[in-house]
């Protein structure tokens, strides 16, 4: 399966991932309404079911989802606490806008190309081989320019059955649910803590999913956090319940 076909069933959208990305860029669904955490969960569940990881597909997923997450988080987070070099919501709008405009340009260009293609489709070219006497000439003038090893190697590629996918290294154990629980447990023990101190010993994937979970808790109003400089320590603090 490809990233494109990842099936999603979200509040505001049901269908393949491909289509979700497309409708966001085409402004048919607001990025703010899309629960990206669910998208990640769907992908991780898919990996769990399939038990195999295609590196190129996974990379593409990460690139696309990371871009969406970045844009969405900038749209969501209040601008006041931003560092000067970070983009605020307005800049985030500009960036999303720039991407939409870029996409529009090529969508329009593709329309023009299709018209050209349709117009040119009726012209047919001749593909008959040369008359014998002329073919002779071409053969006589020919010298060796290609290496037969290339053919052998291509044949070898074709003979190779696809390798059995080794799934031992991708036992997918990181679930967003579980990371949410880990965060809540930690917060239950003490009202504030340092991210690295608490989770620094986990592998990178776990840390990344924990960060997603943190975004989710922030959205629900359960936590706040502070990071005074880029790459600096992240201090997580239980949100003060104001009305409950």
């Amino acid at each position, binding site marked *: 399966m*490809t*990233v*494109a076909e990842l099936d999603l069933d979200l509040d505001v959208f049901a269908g393949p*991932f*491909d*289509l979700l*990305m*497309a409708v*966001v*860029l085409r*402004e048919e669904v*607001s990025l*703010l309404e899309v629960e990206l955490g669910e998208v990640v969960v769907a992908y991780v569940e898919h990996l769990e079911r399939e038990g195999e990881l295609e590196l190129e*597909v996974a*990379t*593409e*997923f990460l*690139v*696309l989802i990371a*871009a969406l997450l970045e844009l969405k988080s900038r*749209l*969501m987070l*209040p*601008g006041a606490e931003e560092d000067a070099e970070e983009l605020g*919501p*307005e800049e*985030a*709008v*500009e960036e*999303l*806008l720039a*991407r*939409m*405009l*870029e*996409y*529009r*340009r*090529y*969508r*329009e*260009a*593709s329309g*023009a*190309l*299709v018209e*050209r*293609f*349709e*117009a*040119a*489709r*009726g*012209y*047919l*070219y*001749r*593909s008959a081989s*040369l*008359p014998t006497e002329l073919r002779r000439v071409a053969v006589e003038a020919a010298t060796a320019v290609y290496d037969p090893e290339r053919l052998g190697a291509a044949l070898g590629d074709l003979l190779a059955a696809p390798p059995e996918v080794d799934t031992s290294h991708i036992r997918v154990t990181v679930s967003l649910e579980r990371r949410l629980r880990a965060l809540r447990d930690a917060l239950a023990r003490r009202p504030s803590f340092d991210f690295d101190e608490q989770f620094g010993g986990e592998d990178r994937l776990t840390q990344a999913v924990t960060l997603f979970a943190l975004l989710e808790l922030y959205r629900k109003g359960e936590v706040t956090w502070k990071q005074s400089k880029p790459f600096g320590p992240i201090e997580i603090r239980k949100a003060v319940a104001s009305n409950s």
Partner: protein
Amino acid sequence: MSDLGRTIEALLFLSAQPVSAADLAEATEATAGQVAEAIELLREDLGEGRRGVVLREVAGGFSLASDPASEEAARRLLAKPRTPPLTQAQAETLAIVAYLQPVSRPEVARIRGVSSESAVQTLAERGLIEESGRSRFGAAIFKTTELFERLFGLAGLDQLPDPSRFDPTPEDERELRERLLKAGEQRAEP
């Protein structure tokens, strides 16, 4: 019809690929000027609607093609299926490759916002684009082929329309920006 014109017509008839003016001059042992003049006359003789065959300038050279008016009869005779139309995904991918080439697949995905694996693969299978190497990060990079220029009736890539023609109008842009800002504000002040 001049001898040179006849010879050029014969060469274009025989060659399966478009032939450049320079190659025509070399083969006919004529000067570039003479070839250009003969081509000009041939272009009139074989203009649209004159005969069954027309002169086309494609992919950096000249080529003979059958007149589109005879397409239907040709399909009946040769039992050739019509080239399938391009899907929207293929057309967008092709537009990005055509304008930005050489371009990598992740770059295509970034612009389209969707994984473009199968569109890229189909276009490569149809011979419209081809791999032209690898990026620094090992991603395959693509460019359009000569067949692309032939099938789209382009004498060369510089004949693609200026992409700025396709830019959204300032009004569209302003409207879109306002809509996005408004959505952001609503979110920020619950």
